[in-house]
């Protein structure tokens, strides 16, 4: 999985009907030292992630392994909202600070 920050959302009324009533969020990819990369992904939200949340998303066929995205044309799904992470004991990101 990769980590990214929710920086926007996508509204598309005319789209493949299999993607109907799915929340599409724009995620900017961050690296492990929490530096934003110039790389964006549109991912289906399956855990109720909000704006500016740091999230974990899965890509590829694994993204279809949720009750919500099963057999749907989706290759990126947000599967967790990150509280914090550390590298070798040093806190790199904390949601509450």
């Amino acid at each position, binding site marked *: *999985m*990769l*980590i990214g920050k929710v920086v926007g959302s996508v509204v598309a009324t005319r789209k493949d009907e299999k993607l109907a009533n799915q929340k599409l969020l724009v995620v900017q990819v961050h*690296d*492990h030292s929490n530096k934003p990369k110039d790389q964006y992904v549109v991912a289906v939200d*399956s*855990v*109720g992630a909000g704006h500016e949340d740091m999230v*974990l998303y*899965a*890509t*590829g*066929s*694994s*993204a279809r*392994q*949720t009750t919500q*995205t099963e057999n749907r044309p989706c290759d990126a*799904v947000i*599967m*967790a*909202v*990150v*509280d*914090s*992470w*550390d*590298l*070798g*004991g040093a806190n*790199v990101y904390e949601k509450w600070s």
Partner: protein
Amino acid sequence: MYLGRVIGRVVATQRYAGLTGVPLHWLQPLDEHGADMGDALVACTVVSAGPGDLVHFVDGREAALACPETFVPVDAAILGFVEQAHANDKFIGRTAAGAR
């Protein structure tokens, strides 16, 4: 599957239901010389690996098969520890002398 080194831990309490209780770690993939290969990624950990451990992991859809519940959105899973790996007569990990 790839070699990797666990470099950190991720805490995410709000997560997909099937993944409760599955630890998440930052993982740096390694090449056959033990040097960094590509970007770090987050993997589900099904063995008790912690930061600093040399491990091997699987990515893609098969990673979900290593998790307690297999129908989960997971694309990387740490499968096991690597005591020693050698390729082109180069050793990685614990060599005979026990050095990390």
